[in-house]
């Protein structure tokens, strides 16, 4: 066998187009070309601008939780562009005269990569990034508990994403959807490397996510500012805690199931083969043991974000803190008890279906409570509709619709008629877009200044919100309708004329979403251009409530010059009410920050190489990669000089400088919040 395993000439993206020219292969070649050219363009840009070095020393080697968070979000945005384009192509395919311009298999590759990318390489990195930036700042910590491991998680995720991108250039991705059920994905029916791409790219990220979960949990458990009890934490920190628990325990079933699938495919094992005693139903079972908690991994951080944004822009304390916390915990625990609702139609007994159906519905109770809590937080407030607040309000309204359809699906007799239909597709996009994505957008708009020191442009932000909101309804409400008519999911084309008008609306909706996305890109662009006038160096541009807003923007690398004293649930609000504009320092002591190191990057690189080699069965290279990964870890374990000290003196200077800045910043009124007068430290005036 050759050292290059099963890799062959035809796997290179451009070749099929020449040997078999068609629109479908042309699009594939084009997509591969975009990836290659994009990568080249970035490299040229970096070289011309001389940015390689700063990139390496400021970003790639960083162990700072805020920067790691930013890299996660950038990764999410890059992958999101691909996911969105795929979605738009799918929508276009379904409205063009059947059989459309894509082959069935090419369309299948699109929905499979779209689903995989959106869940694992957009949603997961997005929320992991937001947690990374915000959570330590909210609990008064200086970093994650294990900064090195944090960076390793990051680079493993990036490695996974890189593999999915590589599948555009070398070989194919799989076609069995993001769920990849065997026997379809077994070696017999899916002989090419697509499924292996799925297995190994998910393998890398899910290890990364498990490690992130451990990191978040230990950080919250051990690093809270002295005096901060669990029930003093922000709701976002609570959401992180519950998400972390889900990450730790729910990724495992996926890892186990996908490695079993790998063994079936490469070693002739019989975990899931239909003959010889395998049981494919166990794949579905394990996939959803992961998959269902996964959707709450996706939504809980968004819930956390709304719980921060809504009180701030309502100028009001959050309603029902304790209820919210217990509801979050309940959702996390219950999420492990309902997985069977994804395969009600497999043929199990009525009892089993009924039990799991009803278990699913219990989740409606805590979720409903949360929705009402947000509403009641707005009630008797003074609402300011910033972009973040608009996304939050839009969420409350739209999420309920998705929740209702979710509860319908949870009734097995209804699910018999809606499973595998576009109704289901509408349900989950209804949860994922106005739920998860709106949450992440709100988070970015809200916390952006902490990382970069300036606000995002509000005008374009609001435009993007409206485009998203309208686009979402346009793109997915029609799917509810034709789903109920019996239109199955994952269809490359429909022949029923009755579906056609609905599909056209869906297509227009998707374009509207695309416009929303464009507006967001413009928003970032405009904001970067006008960053001078959008600077808020004094911090706290929105009369915020969490202690993260007691810091200047951007937040210094060491986060807090002194660990804040936790005198209540909202010490920053107390301080402001007492007329203070900085929190009183506690004790200045020398602190240690981890030194930047290229090691996590190398670990990720080698792990990716290993995974790539596994995909193409280059066993020798895989073995070398695997050993190299551990050798790197071993080398790191000899490194004892990995901290640098920030002295108490430097911290004191940092504090004094911030204080001076704050004192010279004129106090402005909330009415000027979204104007260039806002240089930070805004407060409700007592007029």
């Amino acid at each position: 066998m050759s050292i290059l395993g099963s890799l062959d000439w035809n796997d290179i993206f451009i070749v099929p187009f020449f040997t078999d020219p068609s629109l479908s292969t042309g699009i594939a070649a084009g997509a591969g070309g975009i990836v290659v050219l994009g990568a080249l363009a970035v490299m040229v840009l970096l070289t011309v601008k001389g940015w390689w070095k700063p990139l390496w020393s400021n970003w790639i080697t960083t162990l700072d939780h805020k920067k790691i968070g930013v890299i996660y979000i950038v990764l999410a945005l890059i992958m999101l562009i691909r996911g969105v384009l795929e979605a738009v192509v799918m929508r276009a395919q379904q409205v063009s005269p059947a059989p459309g311009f894509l082959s069935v298999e090419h369309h299948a590759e699109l929905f499979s990569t779209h689903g995989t990318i959106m869940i694992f390489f957009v949603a997961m990195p997005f929320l992991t990034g937001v947690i990374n930036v915000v959570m330590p700042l909210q609990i008064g910590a200086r970093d994650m508990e294990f900064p090195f491991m944090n960076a390793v998680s990051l680079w493993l995720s990036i490695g996974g994403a890189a593999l999915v991108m590589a599948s555009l250039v070398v070989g194919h991705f799989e076609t069995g959807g993001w769920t990849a059920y065997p026997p379809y994905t077994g070696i017999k029916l899916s002989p090419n490397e697509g499924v292996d791409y799925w297995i190994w790219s998910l393998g890398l990220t899910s290890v990364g996510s498990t490690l992130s979960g451990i990191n978040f949990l230990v950080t919250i458990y051990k690093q809270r500012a002295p005096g901060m009890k669990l029930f003093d934490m922000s709701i976002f920190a609570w959401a992180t805690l519950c998400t972390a628990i889900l990450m730790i325990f729910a990724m495992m079933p996926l890892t186990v199931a996908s490695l079993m699938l790998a063994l079936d495919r490469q070693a002739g094992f019989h975990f899931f083969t239909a003959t010889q005693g395998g049981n494919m139903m166990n794949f579905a079972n394990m996939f959803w043991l992961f998959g269902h908690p996964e959707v709450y991994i996706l939504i809980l951080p968004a819930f956390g974000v709304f719980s921060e944004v809504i009180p701030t822009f309502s100028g009001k304390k959050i309603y029902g803190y304790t209820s919210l916390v217990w509801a979050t915990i309940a959702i996390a625990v219950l999420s492990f008890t309902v997985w069977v609702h994804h395969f009600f139609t497999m043929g199990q007994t009525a009892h089993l279906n009924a039990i799991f159906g009803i278990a699913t519905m219990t989740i409606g109770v805590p979720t409903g409570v949360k929705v009402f809590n947000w509403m009641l937080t707005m009630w008797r407030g003074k609402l300011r509709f910033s972009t973040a607040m608009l996304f939050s309000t839009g969420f409350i309204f739209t999420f309920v619709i998705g929740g209702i359809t979710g509860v319908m699906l949870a009734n097995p007799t209804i699910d018999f008629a809606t499973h595998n239909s576009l109704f289901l597709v509408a349900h989950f996009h209804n949860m994922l877009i106005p739920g998860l994505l709106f949450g992440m957008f709100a988070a970015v708009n809200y916390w952006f200044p902490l990382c970069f020191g300036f606000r995002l442009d509000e005008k374009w932000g609001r435009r993007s919100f409206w485009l998203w909101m309208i686009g979402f309804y346009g793109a997915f409400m029609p799917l509810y309708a034709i789903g109920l008519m019996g239109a199955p999911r994952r269809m490359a084309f429909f022949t029923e004329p009755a579906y056609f008008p609905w599909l056209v609306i869906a297509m227009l909706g998707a374009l509207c979403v695309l416009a929303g996305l464009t507006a967001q890109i413009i928003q970032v662009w405009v904001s970067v251009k006008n960053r001078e006038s959008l600077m808020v160096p004094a911090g706290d541009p929105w009369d915020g409530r969490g202690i993260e807003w007691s810091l200047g923007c951007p937040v210094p690398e060491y986060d807090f010059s002194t660990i804040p004293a936790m005198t209540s649930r909202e010490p920053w609000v107390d301080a402001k009410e007492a007329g203070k504009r900085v929190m009183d320092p506690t004790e200045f002591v020398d602190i240690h920050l981890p030194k930047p190191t290229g090691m996590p990057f190398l670990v990720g690189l080698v792990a990716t190489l290993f995974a790539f080699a596994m995909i193409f069965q280059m066993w020798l290279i895989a073995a070398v990669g695997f050993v190299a990964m551990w050798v790197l870890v071993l080398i790191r374990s000899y490194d004892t000089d990995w901290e640098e000290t920030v002295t108490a003196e430097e911290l004191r200077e940092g504090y004094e400088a911030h204080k001076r800045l704050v004192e010279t910043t004129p106090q402005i009124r909330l009415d000027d919040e979204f104007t260039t007068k806002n240089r930070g430290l805004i407060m409700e005036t007592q007029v």
Partner: protein
Amino acid sequence: MTPLGPVAAGERAHLISFFLWMLPISLPILIGTPWIAMRYRRQGGKGKYDPTWSHSVAAEVVIWGGATLTFLIVGWLTWGHVMGEDPYKATGKEPMHVKVIGSEWKWMFIYPGKVAAVNRLVLPENTPVEFDITATGAMQSFWIPRLAGQIYAMPGMGTKMNLTTSEDPSQTYGFNSQFNGAAFPLNKFEVDVVSQEQFDAFLQEPKHPFAQLEKAFKKTATWSGPELFEPPEKGYWGKVMMNPDMLSDGGAAILPDHAPEQKKIDDAIREELHVSQNQHQGDAQ
């Protein structure tokens, strides 16, 4: 979503009832959110500002109580629906039996001892029917939306589905809803519900030998040949269930690039579209 039979009608009724039962708790949110947003907006809103209002026992009781009550109602309904409508339970006395084998992009229906058909399901009106379902190759989902919900068809396993046909003759279609490769959009079949006489006549229609079907079924990806065959020997379906490979050539879900099969499938897709665009007019609901 116009049901033709009682099972599909039941499913639709449940859907509607669930929707209605959840309205009382959802409407306050759907109406309340925009209303609050208007009333309490900072500039121009009329609402009273109370920044410290953050807890109310009454509200907690209403919220938790209302949600729990809704849960109890829908949960209770669910129990009844599911127990009453187990697809394994016959919908009438002595249902007619049809054995189903799903394969890569075609369906075989065996009327034990009478006839075997491909991609064509003919049923007498107003009759309870029980399907025994298995598959070769990939996992599929057997679904006739206007008659009943779906159930998976899996190689190595047998599942069941029961339904009662429409009261009067009708025409509809069924399909596989679980993606299974290159010709997935073609993986459907016609369903004719006919009068008893017509059904008896159907059983008498001229047939091809079963061996011919078996051979061709293995080899072809999409079916365009004759539809009616002699029935196989007794117990044949069970044998296929135990050993799905006997009726499939190892599958061809993902064809290697440039496989001649792929061309055939593409042609089949085109051909099918020609036919179906004229035929299915008005069949969608």
